[in-house]
């Protein structure tokens, strides 16, 4: 009985339901094992959830346009020698969680929505769905997400045109998964730490899966032993992964890029700084008039592989170091 009372004392549930426009929802919870849920049906709504403690859960569900769920912990990230241009720092609304074993979820359906989650701690999970209903694809969504700590998970799915995802993970053993469907999508992520995993996908629509065009995937990895995979289907797509090693004795990372379609470009840059060994990079391109480039500027025992099918493709590999392996297949 005493245990039950203790659980009740530290557990609170807050749920907000709003069905009109221009509403503001603010939830602040201090403690552990709290649950917060906000549902907004309409337009121009704003949500903010702040949780300090461990094992908290929060979710925001928006149905409508121009809803705002922006995070409090987003900072501009200065990436050297990169074309990354993260938005300016945003203050105020959103889901912010300070602690460990927290979960945050945002589900938005409509156009011009914004979502952000800020998490500081370990073993956290953040999930953002924006217009994941293929019958009602959204447009111009911008998800801004940040996780600080180790063993964190980030999962983001967008369906629509002119979608944007900006993500930052600081720490080790983190996992990111970003999926974007339709045209003109942009996915940019920075992972700062070791043993991180990254998956970036950009495809066409559900009706025309192979026509994902004019998409951009950028990833910037700072650390060692990271794994990254980018996959694009369509034409006029661009993917880039840049990796910086830190010379701390751990082996380099494994990077893979796959593109299906025509007029695509892919580039992988490994070992921009430091002198990391045992990096692996591979690019697979199926289609015509594609361009692939792998640069492994430092370290030894690196491997680079480019496979290109059909015609008018270009492959370029630059390696500086010893005991490196290059394989180019053009068939």
């Amino acid at each position, binding site marked *: 009985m005493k245990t039950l009372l203790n659980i009740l004392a530290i557990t609170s549930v807050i749920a907000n339901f709003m069905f009109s426009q221009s509403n503001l929802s603010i939830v602040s919870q201090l403690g552990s094992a709290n649950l917060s849920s906000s549902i907004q049906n309409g337009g121009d709504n704003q949500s903010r959830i702040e949780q300090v403690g461990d094992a908290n859960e929060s979710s925001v569900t928006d149905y409508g346009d121009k809803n705002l769920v922006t995070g409090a912990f987003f900072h501009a990230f200065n990436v050297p020698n990169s074309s990354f241009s993260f938005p300016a720092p945003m203050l105020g609304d959103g889901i912010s969680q300070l602690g460990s074993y927290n979960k945050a979820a945002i589900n938005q359906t409509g156009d011009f929505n914004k979502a952000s989650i800020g998490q500081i701690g370990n073993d956290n999970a953040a999930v953002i769905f924006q217009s994941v209903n293929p019958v009602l694809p959204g447009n111009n969504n911008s998800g801004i997400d940040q996780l600080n700590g180790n063993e964190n998970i980030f999962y983001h799915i967008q369906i629509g045109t002119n979608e944007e995802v900006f993500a930052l993970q600081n720490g080790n053993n983190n996992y990111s998964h970003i999926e974007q469907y339709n045209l003109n999508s942009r996915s940019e992520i920075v992972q700062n730490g070791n043993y991180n995993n990254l998956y970036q996908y950009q495809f066409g629509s559900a009706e025309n899966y192979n026509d994902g065009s004019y998409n951009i995937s950028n990833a910037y990895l700072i650390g060692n032993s990271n794994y990254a995979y980018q996959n694009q289907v369509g034409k006029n797509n661009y993917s880039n992964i840049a990796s910086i090693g830190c010379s701390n004795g751990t082996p380099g990372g494994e990077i893979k890029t796959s593109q299906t379609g025509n007029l695509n470009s892919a580039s992988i840059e490994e070992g921009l700084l430091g002198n990391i060994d045992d990096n692996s990079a591979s690019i697979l391109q199926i289609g015509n008039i594609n361009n692939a480039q792998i640069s492994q500027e430092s370290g030894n025992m690196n491997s680079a592989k480019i496979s290109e099918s059909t015609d008018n*493709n270009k492959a*370029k590999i630059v*390696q*500086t170091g010893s*005991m490196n392996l*290059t394989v*180019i297949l053009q068939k």
Partner: protein
Amino acid sequence: MNTKVYWLIAVSLLWLDFSFAQTIKSQLFDNISIEENLLKINYLVDNSIYLNIASSNIINSASVSQTGNRNEAFIEQIRGGDNKGNIVKVTQCFENNLTSINQSGVGNQNYITQSGLNNKTIADINGLNNNSVIIQEGTNNYISQKMESDSKNYYIAQQGANNLIIQEGNEAISKPYLISQKGTGMRLFITSGAIK
């Protein structure tokens, strides 16, 4: 002489050696250029060679640059036809490097340069109207090139010591070629279908 004079002489000798090496290197490597669909070689002052591929159309192009030791590059190109070819460019420096090329089709060209010790180039080229340029500078280097059918022409140059060239072909009529070896302990083996 004091210490400064010794240092001055040492630096001067190093500079002379460096300049000499750069001169040799420029003779071997710097006078070769790939212009659009054209391999242009000015290795010999009075004898320029131009290797034209069969058509202005390039299907696939592959470029590899490796600076270091014990590097390996494997390139396979099998597209080609209707007078459209592939192009390969490989540059490797220092020791114990390996380049392996396998090309099939029509109108392919490759361009390989290696400098240093114990480097190997193995080229297997099949099809019609292919061109090949292989240049090595250094010691104990090895070139093995097999050009089947009616490849168009090839150019092989080695400079240094104890280098080896093995050229094989099965063409009925000998193709135009230029082989240049400068140094000591060089070996050359040519097998052609045109030579009975």
